[in-house]
């Protein structure tokens, strides 16, 4: 039995009282100042990437490596609908937890009890949203200035009153003129604007815009077209193929206060796969580099002007786009770095001091996180250029690795300043593919535009698998590596309590020792995880919140690859599960 000392109880009580008081006093607002200092605010999770450092790190240690064995479910919440599971990232502000579920639902819950404070359901133009593949995902929200912001699958942005859930403004941001698409990613607040990127990488449209919207009025302040927006881009698409080139930036990027820039990852070009193979520079459906698809773009936060860029996959022939929204800032030896993972399994380390002039970013290092790959021979650590590309011309190609699903998916890793390690999932699988000469659709038509048919396979001589590594983020040197039978698809979170939380594909939610990778605790949530995980304080208690639910283009392969339990796993269920000691 546990012994409660008087001082222990008194401390706990006074801490609770203080925090209770603090939460009453602070529910006032999430100001720009609070967002800028989110990394120092361990009690709250104020934005998708936790802070502009992009670490997905919780500075709380009430739950730690010594006591995590006592972690248990505190409460759960089941949203009214969760088609394709819950893929969003909850946010926590002064004891209130906010999250979104599919089809534009927003929930505000009491962070300690789970009691519903308010709920909002966006009215979606289903005729429009059901014309795309990205329906009905919603991956999260932004909070600030007394408002909650979401994007919708039919191209709108909605601002709600954070206290009541009432609509403050509701604007159509994305027209269908250049192809039907919408928003699935969470917005991020940057100063007086809210930034969001569009989907559409697999559709024969243009121009995959990233928008900055006035946070107070919902008016578009600036727009950056990821393809076809400037001369350099248009020159890099033969036969004006930018008009059907896809593009977009569907995941949440970040902001670097040091250079006042927005960093965003962009989607793949359409069509996926290119029958011209090695002749892609001059032939095929989209000859040329296809800028700025599968790239990182660095934009002036006030004007949207392109300050720098780096195309991680020049003429992406594999659908290994750069839409991963994770940008990890690191300062070491007087240098300012930005780390960005790419779907092709590469971690790019950029020099974040040398930004400007519209030039290419300087690559300080690039290393392979994926283990099973033959689409390239490797990456040049000095330049970030791909070495030994394997093109996929018209015809059949067996055992291409990784599969279209990538070695890295859109969910995030985490950096822990205590251990100095960066934790990230790698997925190891392959596919057999036949590339076809797809007919060119009408310009700006926004139709499904692929150039191949394929079947998921295991790597040769091995079953498809996943891993989580803890490594030096700049050099890539591995400190520990833990293998997973089923590649996890959700985000990771590390904490000051020396824990790394891994929401697993089979439903198992695991806490690893951040120093060794050893499993310390697990709980079966009963269904796969495919979204976010956060930690926050409410009433003096540390909570860990994770969303559950299964169903996506990537998770669809688990049934054929592994069978049970994925063949029976529902794709229209999911919950928010919240843990505490």
């Amino acid at each position, binding site marked *: 039995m546990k012994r409660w000392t008087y001082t222990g109880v008194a401390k706990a009580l006074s801490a609770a009282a203080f925090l209770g008081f603090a939460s009453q006093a602070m529910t006032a607002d999430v100001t720009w100042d609070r967002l800028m200092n989110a990394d120092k605010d361990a009690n709250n999770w104020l934005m998708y990437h936790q802070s502009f450092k992009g670490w997905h790190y919780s500075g709380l240690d009430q739950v730690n490596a010594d006591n995590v064995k006592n972690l248990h479910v505190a409460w759960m919440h089941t949203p009214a609908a969760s*088609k*394709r599971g819950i893929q969003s990232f909850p946010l926590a502000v002064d004891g209130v937890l906010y999250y979104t579920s599919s089809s534009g639902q927003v929930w505000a819950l009491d962070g300690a009890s789970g009691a519903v404070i308010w709920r909002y359901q966006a009215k979606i133009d289903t005729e429009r949203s*059901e*014309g*795309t*593949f990205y*329906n*009905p995902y919603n991956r999260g929200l932004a909070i600030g200035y007394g408002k909650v912001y979401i994007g919708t699958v039919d191209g709108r942005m909605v601002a709600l009153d954070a206290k009541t859930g009432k609509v403050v403004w509701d604007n159509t941001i994305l027209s269908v003129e250049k192809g039907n698409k919408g928003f699935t990613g969470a917005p991020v607040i940057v100063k007086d604007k809210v930034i969001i990127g569009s989907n559409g990488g*697999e559709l024969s449209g243009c121009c995959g815009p990233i928008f900055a919207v006035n946070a107070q009025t919902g008016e578009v302040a600036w727009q950056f077209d990821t393809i076809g927006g400037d001369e350099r881009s248009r020159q890099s698409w033969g036969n004006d193929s930018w008009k059907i080139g896809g593009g977009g930036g569907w995941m949440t990027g970040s902001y670097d206060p040091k250079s006042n820039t927005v960093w965003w990852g962009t989607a793949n070009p359409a*069509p*996926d796969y290119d029958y011209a193979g090695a002749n892609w520079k001059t032939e095929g459906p989209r000859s040329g580099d296809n800028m700025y698809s599968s790239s990182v773009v660095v934009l002036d936060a006030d004007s949207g002007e392109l300050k720098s860029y780096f195309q991680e996959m020049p003429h992406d022939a594999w659908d290994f786009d750069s839409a991963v929204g994770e940008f990890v800032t690191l300062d070491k030896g007087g240098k300012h770095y930005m780390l960005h993972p790419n779907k092709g399994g590469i971690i790019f380390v950029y020099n974040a001091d040398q930004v400007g002039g519209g030039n290419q970013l300087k690559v300080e290092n690039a290393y392979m996180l994926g283990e099973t790959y033959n689409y390239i021979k490797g990456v040049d650590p000095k330049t970030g250029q791909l070495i030994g590309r394997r093109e996929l011309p018209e015809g059949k190609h067996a055992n291409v690795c990784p599969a279209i699903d990538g070695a890295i998916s859109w969910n995030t890793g985490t950096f822990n300043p205590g251990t100095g390690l960066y934790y990230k999932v790698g997925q190891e699988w392959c596919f057999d593919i*036949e590339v*076809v*000469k*797809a*007919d060119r659709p009408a310009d700006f*038509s926004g*139709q*499904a*535009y*692929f*150039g*191949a*048919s*394929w*079947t*998921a396979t295991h790597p040769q001589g091995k079953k498809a698998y996943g891993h989580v590594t803890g490594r030096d983020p700049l050099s890539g040197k591995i400190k520990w590596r833990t293998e997973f039978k089923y590649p996890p698809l959700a985000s990771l979170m590390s904490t000051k309590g020396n824990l790394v939380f891994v929401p697993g594909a089979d439903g198992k939610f695991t806490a690893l020792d951040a120093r060794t990778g050893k499993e310390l605790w697990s709980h079966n949530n009963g269904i796969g995880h495919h979204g976010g995980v956060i930690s926050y304080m409410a009433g003096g208690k540390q909570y860990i919140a994770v969303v559950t639910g299964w*169903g*996506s*283009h990537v*998770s*669809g*392969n688990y*049934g*054929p690859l592994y069978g049970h339990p994925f063949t029976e796993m529902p794709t229209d269920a999911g919950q928010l599960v919240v843990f505490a000691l």
Partner: protein
Amino acid sequence: MNVSRSTRTALVVAMIAGLFSISGLAQDPTDEAAAKIDEKFGGNIKKLFATRCSWCHQGYGMKQADGPKLAGTSKSLAQVMAQIMNGKTPMPGFKNQLKFEEVQALAEYIKALPAD
């Protein structure tokens, strides 16, 4: 003829191998189904399928993935056509993207795929 036992075994093995290689050369069932449809509609149905449907229906409709295996569907031709036109989340509806004849050709191709 004096054939040693081992040679005889080798011959039998070779014959069996030959048989297998003949069946290996047999038509891919998706090619077989596509040939009939292409003759009737005068297009390239596998290409159309790859361009529009492959993201979710793998192996030209022979394999389950994000979307179900289409070969052997219990739906009628009319129901398959309705599904292609209207979709069912997360499958998009294609009524504004495909010509009626293309929907018909895709549906007939799916119905022509072998059940197993």
